[in-house]
Structures are given as C-alpha cells and as structure tokens.
C-alpha cells in the first residue's frame, strides 16, 4: 500500500524516469518476495537519483524484510534527512534502530510516526518507564491482550516499582517502608528467614502499617509455621476488620491447624466482606465439612461451581463433593462428582494421570 501511494505521488514529481522505473521493478520484485532483486533495483534507483527519499526508504524496508536491520538503518536515515516529513520512513527507521538496540535514538522517530506500541517498548529499553507505561497502555487500548504489549507493560511497571523501591531504600534505609520492601523482595525470592527479619523490623518501627501482619503471616504460611501465621493474620484482622483477604488467610491458617470451628467463623466473615470469592467458598466448604455440617459444605461448594467450572479449584471441589457424598452413602452423586473430577484432571482409573504416561 505504501509503495502504491509512493509511486502515485512520485509520478507527479520531478523524479528521474529511470530511477522511477527501477523503483517500480523493485516494488514488484518485493511483492513477489524476491527481496534480493528488490534490493538491487532500489539501489539502482537511488544511485540514479540520490535525492529520491522514497527510493532510500524502499531500500531500507527491503533490508528490514530481509532481517538485515543494520543495513537498513543508513538508507532510512538518508530518507528522513532528504524528506523529514516522510512518516513511514521514520516508522521504519524507528523499528530498525529499536531492533538493533538503539532505543534512545529510535524514540524521536517513533514519536514522529505516532507508533505508540514500539515507542512504549523503546522507552522501556531506554529506561523512560513512566512514559513507557503511558504509551503501552494507549497501545493496549488499540490492541487489547496483545501478549508482547502486556509483557512490556508488566516489565515497565515492575521496573518502575523497583526504581521507587530502590530510591526508598537508598534514601531511607532504616525506615519501616524500606524494611517492608526488602521483606517483599526476600519473599519473592523464597528467602523466608530474611523476609521474616525485614517484616519484623518494619513492624517494630511502625506497628500500625497496613498489610504488614498479612505479609509476615504469608511468610509463616509459606514455611508451614501455621501457629505463627495465625497470630499475624489475627493481628491483621484486628487492625482491619474489613479486610476480606486477612479474614480468608486467618481462616485458612486455622483450617491447616485443624481448628475447623474458628476457621469457619473467619471464612464466613470473609465471604460476607467479599462475596462469591471461589477460594473462600472452597475453604468454607472444607471447614463446614470438617465440622460435620455437610449441608453448608455442599452449598459452599455448589456456589463455587456456579462461578468456576473448569479450573483446578473446580476439579478440587468436585473431588471434595465426591468424598462427601461417598461418606453420606450417596453413591450415584459421588460417582458423578468423581467423573467430573476425572474429566477435569484427565485421569483414567488404573492409569497414571495425563502427563505421567510415558
């Protein structure tokens, strides 16, 4: 399309007819995927008419198609020098520079071409994170769920977050927030003793910091220290009685400790605070089942299955229902739930689950 417009426009300009002829031949060859022929023709066109910006642009584009990004840069640069308002040339040059790692240099060309997606990526690579987030979000509005854009937006946001944390830790190394941030880092790295140390230090400095008990509780939960996790989650629910996640975490910890009654109280609270959360419903069903309240367990699990039908949690719920029905002597229902479970897990009785048959 670009080439057609170029030719239409050039035909009304004072370009050399010989050069235009080679340009036309090159464009045809390029369409037929004879890139080497196209390159040769574009070179002849630019040799014949050194002021033919469109010729240089076409040459650069052909190099790009041939994945010779380094060779594309010079003709494209020449094209924009000859004709600074030739936006497709800016766009192509921006791409070539970006691919070759010259992100900073690519940015003005991509800006000129209003190419927000590539611009956002170039800004991530150049460390201009705030601008990158803005441009990538704009690009995602046009191309929702594009995996590359989602990746780069995530990366930009992560790096931006890291930048803020690095600044925080450098400026206020002994602050509660710095310790909290360090704790979060260690948690991600699964270095639980270090994470515990940092969260405890943060709590000592600022005991009223929201979420700190929750984070420390998560550290204990991750290392299966359920009694300690319970203490922290309880502290969080005391500080923030409206925090559904804290109520859920406390309920889960209590469940792990076999304290079904208390667990159930917290899980009911979590369900009231944020209704219809599948994880809460699953645990609520477990707690009710442990207490012998099979009607409540069944209700929670069936509620869950009305929300989630094909996830791992749905499979777990079918499995739990099968166990409960089996215990109740409801053989047909138990078999049905087990079949649903097997369907989701892809298990054939008497054979290993899928992925294990070798």
């Amino acid at each position: 399309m670009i080439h057609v417009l170029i030719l239409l426009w050039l035909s009304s300009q004072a370009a050399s007819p010989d050069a235009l002829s080679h340009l036309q031949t090159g464009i045809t060859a390029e369409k037929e995927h004879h890139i080497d022929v196209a390159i040769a023709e574009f070179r002849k066109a630019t040799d014949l008419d050194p002021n033919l910006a469109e010729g240089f642009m076409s040459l650069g584009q052909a190099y790009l198609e041939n994945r010779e990004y380094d060779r594309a840069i010079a003709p494209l640069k020449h094209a924009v020098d000859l004709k600074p308002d030739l936006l497709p040339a800016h766009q192509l040059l921006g791409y070539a520079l970006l691919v070759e790692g010259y992100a900073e240099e690519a940015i003005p060309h991509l800006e000129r071409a209003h190419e927000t997606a590539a611009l956002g990526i170039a800004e991530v690579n150049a460390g201009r994170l705030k601008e990158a987030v803005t441009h990538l979000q704009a690009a995602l509005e046009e191309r929702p769920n594009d995996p590359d854009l989602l990746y780069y937006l995530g990366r930009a946001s992560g790096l931006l977050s890291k930048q803020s944390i690095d600044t925080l830790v450098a400026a206020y190394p002994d602050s509660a927030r710095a310790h909290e941030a360090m704790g979060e880092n260690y948690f991600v790295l699964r270095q639980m003793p270090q994470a515990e140390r940092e969260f405890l230090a943060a709590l000592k400095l600022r005991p009223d910091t929201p979420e700190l008990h929750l984070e420390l509780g998560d550290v204990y939960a991750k290392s299966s220290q359920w009694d300690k996790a319970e203490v922290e989650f309880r502290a969080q629910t005391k500080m923030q009685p409206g925090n559904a996640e804290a109520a859920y975490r406390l309920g889960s910890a209590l469940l792990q400790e076999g304290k079904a009654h208390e667990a159930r109280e917290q899980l009911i609270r979590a369900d009231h605070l944020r209704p219809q959360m599948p994880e809460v419903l699953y645990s609520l069903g477990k707690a009710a089942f442990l207490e012998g309240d099979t009607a409540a367990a069944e209700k929670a699990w069936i509620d869950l299955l009305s929300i989630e039908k094909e996830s791992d949690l749905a499979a777990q719920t079918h499995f739990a229902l099968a166990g409960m029905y089996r215990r109740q002597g409801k053989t047909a229902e138990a078999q049905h739930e087990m079949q649903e479970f097997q369907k989701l897990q892809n298990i054939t009785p008497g054979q290993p689950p899928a992925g294990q048959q070798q």
Partner: protein
Amino acid sequence: MMKQSGPKFLFAVVCFSGLIFCAASPQSSILELTQLKGLNFVLQNSPTTQKYLIETMPGGIALLDYNDDGLLDIFMVNGGRVLDPMKTEDFDRHDPRYWNRLFRQNKDGSFTDVTEHAGLANAGDGNYGMGVAVGDYDNDGYPDIYVTNYGKNTLYHNNGDGTFTDVTEKAGVAAGGWSVSAGFLDYDNDGKLDLFVTRYMEWDTKHSKSCGAEWHTYCPPEEFPVTTNILFHNNGDGTFTDVSQRSGIASSKGRALGLAFADYDDDGFTDIFVSNDGMRQFLFHNNGNGTFTENALEAGAALSQDGRRMSGMGVVFQDYDNDGRPDIVVTELPREIFSLYHNDGGGFFEYRSLETGLGVLSSGSSGWGVGLEDFDNDGWKDLFVAQSHVLDNVEDIDPSLHYKQLPLLAMNHNGRFESVDPGTTVPAASRGAAFGDLNNDGWQDVVVSVLGGAPQVFMNRGGNQHWLTISLRGTRSNRDGYGARVRVNGQTRYATATGSYLCSNDKRLHFGLGAAQTAKIEVLWPSGIHQSLADVHADQFLEIREPEKP
C-alpha cells in the same frame, strides 16, 4: 496350644554401662537415641555430582530373629560404590565397605557382625542396595531374607544353622530394574507366603540426568517413565511364579516406593497399598480369586484432600483410632502434609490429616520410614516418622527447608496426634525406619537408617503401663501368621512385617494395655479360623498357635 513365658528383661537400657551409650536427650522423651555396642555400620550411598537418583534412596533395615534365640537381630542393607560418573554399573559390592550386614544380638545386648559367617557377604557387584523383606516362605520356622536392589534382587534362604543360601535363581525372584520396598504376604490364603516387590521407575545410570538448572540437583520423578510392580506367587516347592500380569498388578504402572498390607474391607483377603511418588497412590483390592483391582481413587485413598497427587514415600496400614479397621498413613514431601486415610468401613476411606493434627505436624517435613506403634503402652498407636529431604542441597534452593531433619514422634491421644520430643536433637538424613522390641522389655524401639552414616537406634525408656506381645504360629495358615487380624482389648493389629519404607519390622504383634493387667485376645487367622483367649496376663511374650482344626 499356646506357650507363655515371663517378660524377658534381657537387659535394661542403662546409660554408660559399657554396653550401651546413651546420647544426651531430655528426660521428657520416651525414646532415647542410643548407640548399641557392636552395631558398626555405615550406609554407603556414595553421593556424586552426577546426582544419580539411587544415591538418595537407600537403605532398608530388618529386625528379625534369624537364629531363633528369642533376641532380635538386625540386618542392614547397604548402597554401593558409585563412580562419578558411572561408566559401567559396577557398585563394587565385593568390597566389605559395601556389604549388607547382619548383626546377631548377644545375650548381653551387644551385637556381633556375622555377615560373612552367615553367607551374606557379597551382594552382587551389579546391585545397588535398597530394601529388605523378611518372611518364612518355606514354613520351616526360620525367617528368610529378600533384598531389593537397583539391579537384581536376592532371596536368601535361612538354613536354620546360622547360615543363609542364595536361592534367587532357583526361586525365580530376581526381578530386575529398580526395586524398592518388598514384603511377604499370603494373598491367596494357601498357607504359603507370596512376595510383592515395588519398583520405582524406568531409570538407569546411562539415562540419568540432573535437574534444577543452576542448583544441579536430583530430578523429580516425573522426569522418568513409570513402571510396574511385581507379584510372585509361592509354588510351595521353593520356586515362585511371576503373576504380575495374571493378577492385574502389572496393569497399573506407577512410581512406587512404599508398601503395606492389610485387609481393609474385612473380606478375609490381604489387600495391598503402594505409595507412589509424584502421582496418585495405589490400593490393590484383593478380589479373592487371585486377581486384584486397583481402586484407590474410588476408595478415597489416592490423592490429597484437595484432589492433588502426592509424593508418596513411606506407608503404614494399621488401625490408629481403635475402631477395628486398618487406616493408612503416607509420608510425603514438605508442603504436602502426610496423608492419613481413615477407614470408614464399606471399602471407603476419608482423608483426615487435618482433624487428627497430622497436617500441622508434617507440613514442613519430608517423611520416609513410618510406623504406628504404641510407644507409651497406653492403648493407642503413636506415630514415628524418619524425616529428611530428598535433595541434599535443598537449603540452596529453598532456605526454609532442610535436608537433615529430626524424626517426628507424635503421641496418639484418642485419635489425635501431638508432637513430642523424639529423643534426639541431632538432625539426620534418615530414610528407613524399622520397629520392634530390641531388648524384649515390652516397649517398642526404632532403628533408623541414615544416608552416609551409622543407623540411629531409639531405645524406649519404658514406664509403668502394661503390655502384651504376641507371636503367631500358623499351622493351616502360613507359619508367620501374616495376614491374621489380632484384637486385644479393643485394639487391632494386622499381622505383617511390612510397612514403613524399605524395611521389615519385628513380626511380633505388640499391644500397650494401659492399666489393664489382663487381656482378651481374638485372632482371625488367614485360614478363616477364629481363636479367642480370655484373661491373658499382661506383660508377657505370648505365642499363639493356630488350631489345627476350626
């Protein structure tokens, strides 16, 4: 009919007596880490940088009275030499460092290494040792030994004169591949012990690999293909027939490690539970006609409470809550929690790790050998688990986990487990755990195998509660009485030496009686014969002989 004898306090565990050295541990523990004189053994697992999986899996222990002198002897399975890397599969088992070892218990409680004299010295250079099973397969009154290997397995017939003969070839039980736990059982109730062998996976040193990227560690089981277990039928003439296909056992391929037997549905036939690593567990229901149906999923004993597959390692199949039905405990990796499947009757199990307290006791641990034994003789079976992570560099990968761990000792209070001091403060790379009354004092002891180290022996300090230990003498049934269900004052034990991981336990059935000074005993023999004994005095070793006629 039955032979009674007074309690044999052959020795009391006396610290610093010269015979026994007691390691320092708080007085509060009922078990005490003890060094037995003469038990000189180091389990040579030979870890290499190649991270060959076999290195992290041995080794078995058997507690048996091989010379019928009334004292438990100890047989230890050794690993072998592993070169780094292995070019040929020669584990140098002719080198005495890599022999399996038989230790005879002397009257003074010390042990003497009788390996060479007993004819057990060379385990075969192509074999890397794993586990052991004990049973009197020819009903001659002397326990025979079956050793599992990576390589070929070995059956040693007990000649009754203190020596053994390798009869593997004649018996036809060499198997092959990577065998792990094994056990003798009489699955068809014909009075002759058959043999079940678990196998881990399709693996050999040439097709080994390491995993974990920068951490370079042992691969998870999913990296290697599944394989079959083996069932050998005892022909009664010193030979066995591989009936794995015919019986249906071979139709379920897995990655088996642990093995335990019990009749879970009370139909008179022994069923088989196999713990599998990284997948669902197997429960082979004995159909009573020589075939088995794998129905763990249908019975509710295949997966965790959340329907997740597990890293099943050790297993025990006994009644923990005194309801008369055998339950199952499977030990696993950290974060999975050990699974307790309560036998609800009717052929169904219910997952009860959380309610029983086992969940919170095990969520950070990695368990191997396991036993349900009444250590304090209060009438409730307690839980002992040998613990250690599979990966010797797990701390590098996840600092919150540990390679060497303390064992778990959890006392059973009316069906709920509570952790107590296990009798040691020294973490170890533990694997197998065998249970029995080493010093015949009426209190259960434990021997644990340790990778690269000496075994840990936990002697029971004893107390004031009463007890009863029963030896079964089958006549119509197999001579060991394996498969009998024995009830004593409301407690039930299923007669077997199999359970735990790689190990063979004291075949005698131990019961704690609490304050009771007499016991009512009921025995249901594999032959179908019921036998009852009333007002039996406590605190004795009692042999019960099966009536010749119903």
